[in-house]
């Protein structure tokens, strides 16, 4: 609904020429019509979007969580790594996709899925690394002391004590990164990565408000569902004693 309102208000500031075409917002019935007639079409785009964001998030976790753990044992590296991850976040997504093109053209992958996935992985690093680092650093020092005093090795301490207790915060970081990536992933269509951004982009080209809205709403719904799904996973992986 917010998106619907946003377009209504936002359209006022567009130039006259476009304004005529954009001003009239489509009635809800048009939108419902669009969804029902193009259901399989939207579903296909959604599936592409899930594949793109999903693979990026899995890679991001595999890189980010170990880096976060490393940060928690090496304070000096922590500030450097977090700084770099923060800088990544400040690059506008469109610019980042643009940068990918010449770099990856060297291996003939300038456009398509690969640059999109790389960009999304880079974007996800800050929330994942920062949350993992904070979560492990914040494990009660007495608990860590007890773990050492009892005779756990560093790895046993990490896997039996620190990670399980840090789980809720690490998962929160992964959720933030996922929702963020679903949004940014919509722009990846501009470098030919497909996904729901395609519907929005086509809508803009054809000045078809119904299509723009349909794409935007689909992205929002996907983000909500992903968040819900990750909450379930979080619940599954969080030890009972850590849940408050």
């Amino acid at each position, binding site marked *: 609904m917010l998106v619907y309102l946003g377009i209504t208000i936002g359209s006022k500031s567009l130039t006259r020429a476009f304004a005529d075409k954009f001003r009239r917002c489509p009635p809800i019935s048009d939108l419902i019509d669009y969804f029902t007639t193009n259901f399989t079409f939207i579903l296909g785009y959604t599936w592409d979007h899930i594949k793109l964001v999903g693979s990026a998030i899995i890679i991001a976790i595999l890189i980010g969580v170990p880096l976060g753990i490393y940060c928690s044992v090496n304070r000096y590296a922590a500030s450097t790594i977090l700084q770099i991850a923060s800088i990544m976040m400040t690059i506008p997504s469109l610019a980042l996709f643009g940068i990918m093109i010449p770099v990856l053209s060297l291996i003939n992958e300038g456009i398509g899925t690969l640059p999109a996935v790389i960009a999304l992985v880079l974007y996800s690093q800050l929330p994942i690394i920062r949350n993992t680092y904070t979560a492990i650093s914040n494990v009660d020092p*007495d*608990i860590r*002391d*007890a773990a050492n005093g*009892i*005779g756990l090795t560093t790895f046993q301490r990490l896997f039996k*004590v620190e990670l399980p207790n840090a789980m809720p915060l690490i998962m929160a970081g992964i959720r933030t990164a996922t929702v963020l990536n679903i949004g940014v992933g919509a722009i990846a269509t501009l470098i030919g990565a497909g996904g729901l951004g395609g519907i929005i982009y086509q809508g803009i080209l054809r000045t078809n408000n119904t299509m723009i809205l349909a794409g935007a709403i689909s992205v929002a719904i996907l983000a909500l569902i992903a968040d819900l799904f990750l909450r379930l996973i979080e619940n599954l992986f969080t030890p009972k004693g850590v849940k408050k």
Partner: protein
Amino acid sequence: MIHFNDVTKVYNGNVKAIENMNFTVEDGELVIMLGPSGCGKTTLLRMVNQLESITDGDIMLNGKSVRHSNKIEMRRNIGYVIQSNGLFPNMNIEDNAMIVPNLLGWDRKKMRDRFNMLMELVGLNPDEYRKRYPHELSGGQQQRVGVARALAADPPVMLMDEPFGALDPIIRTHLQEEFLQIQKELKKTILFVSHDIDEAVKMADKIALLKGGKMMQYAEPARMLNKPSNSFVAEFVGQDRVLKSMSLYTVKDLADALTLKPVLESPDSQNINENLSLRVAISKILNQEADQLIVENDNGTRKGSITLDLIEQFLHREIKESV
């Protein structure tokens, strides 16, 4: 046996936390390290299981140098209890208590039996608590589990860092007494850190009083109270040290040392069990509850009576004897 041999700890090249510490904790003894905060007692304790490094000298644990032992293996053979219990929130009580046996690869049946036995020992119902989590337990219950965890693999040596310090006075007294009972049965070699002189007097076989990383006095509680070796010790144990020392003696000790007075039938008399401490006896008299206390043994047989001057006589004798 824990033997401290010229142990020295230096921080940042010049701050001496521990200086030339030499003393021995004999097998089956409970030694309490006492002292003001910053005196190095916790550092010294943590040097035994190598959570703190040793700058100079060595600690021999049952004849083996801790500096040259495998840290992980050694720690698994030392029970470790800390003030905040340090239970792992992500594990249930059984997993928490059985973590060391688990690491040592005990089989399931043996672990279950051990858990049941230990929980009975610390006064918790094993089946009621098995699947519960630390945050569902009260502070006292958590500390009981902490003690059970330290005892799990039946280590000969235990290190306890103010284990009852965070509990309220009633629970603390309760746990101290229960722990003494356990210790009577198990006869572990225990090094214990405390800042509470009353706790030390009540529980320790010997007290090590530290100040600024140096040993002030290492002696049995009675000796420390009756014959402090310097003014710092005298001040630390308190000017009421004679009163404190009374909790070290039972009515029976007095009855064995001196001849009890005959029982006079008088309204101002009360019965007292011979196993109670002299401290209880004297406070009963001072409270004006009774002028004479009739000593009874566990069967209720009267052995005689005690009065204020008899207690005074006994204390004079004890102070002289310990000189």
